[in-house]
């Protein structure tokens, strides 16, 4: 089965590969894996005033997993935390034209987004408690 053009594009020119310091207060890190296939995904967001100003990822896995996380970082940039929560794996499936056997890759990307947002929120909450 061939990958769609968009998957190939993201796979051969992945956007936003890299990482931020995960201990920085304005960084949220999502680290997820799929035990069924062994794929590992790390997705990070940098937040200022409730807006995601930058996003980076590292993925060890198949082309679809890399493409899904690459696309996710593209979409995250410029979104508010609230808007980012609404990104669904089905959006990724549609955009990348993922075949049914690769849907779990998009689920992994959604999980990574959620985990990164949660991690950031947790940090933001403890900070606001500290400053009170």
């Amino acid at each position, binding site marked *: 089965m061939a990958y769609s053009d968009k998957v190939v594009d993201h796979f051969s020119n992945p956007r936003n590969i890299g990482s931020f310091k995960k201990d920085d207060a304005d960084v949220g890190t999502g680290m*997820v*894996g799929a*035990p069924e*296939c*062994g794929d*590992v995904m*790390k997705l990070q967001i940098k937040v200022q005033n409730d807006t995601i100003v930058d996003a980076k990822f*590292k993925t*060890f896995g198949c082309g679809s997993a890399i493409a899904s996380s690459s696309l996710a970082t593209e979409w995250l940039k410029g979104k508010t935390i609230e808007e980012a929560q609404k990104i669904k794996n089905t959006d990724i499936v549609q955009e990348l034209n993922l075949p049914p056997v690769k849907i779990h890759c998009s689920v992994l990307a959604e999980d990574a987004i959620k985990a990164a947002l949660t991690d950031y929120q947790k940090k933001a909450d403890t900070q606001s408690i500290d400053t009170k």
Partner: protein
Amino acid sequence: MANDQSSPHSETRRQLQMARSMCWHCQSEMSGEYFCERCVKVQPVSKDADYFTCLGVPRRLTLDPKKLEAKFYELSRAFHPDFYQTKSPTEQTISLSNAAVLNTAYRTLRDPIQRAEYLLALEAGSVKDIRTSPPADLFEEILELQETLEEYRASDRDSEQGHRLRATLQTEQQTLEGRREDMESQLRQLFTDWDQLQDREEATSQARAERDRVLKHMRDLLSNRTYINNIVSDLAATIA
């Protein structure tokens, strides 16, 4: 498993259950055998039967491979299409689909790791939150290793840098293989623990907690083993 709900359809449900335990041919009562005692017709594998039941082996993780194989051969002979050439189309269809189910069942249970994955899937419903938090350290390690792999792929293999990276990756591969072996021996211990717990058939809360602990630990080890497997095969393929 599904709650036992009493609905207006319970009458139909009961009939369905009865139908399942009846010979399709002579309607005499059956209790899961492959051949009707009265009319000797072959019976289809029940849709609810798990692979252990299909093969007639106990739901255990330390199965004797010889016995499992013997069971499989015995049943394969029983359903062999050659013996059904002169039988009715229904019997031919049943024997064929039984043979297919048995093949899948045997392929799954033959491999101890796949067997454990299968058992976990069967038991998952009874254990809350069997999927524990992801192993962040292992993930970091894998991602870092992958970067070194990329570096090596991009490097000139005959250069000094290429040689150095290759040596690093080789050491990493050996370390990971060692860890995988260690995980597998831990798993084997857990398989034995699990079977002993099952054999004791205790229903105390302590026994239940112990069961959940073993299942969870198995889940973690099996997942981590898959992650390590993936990176090891990537390493092996790259530096081979």
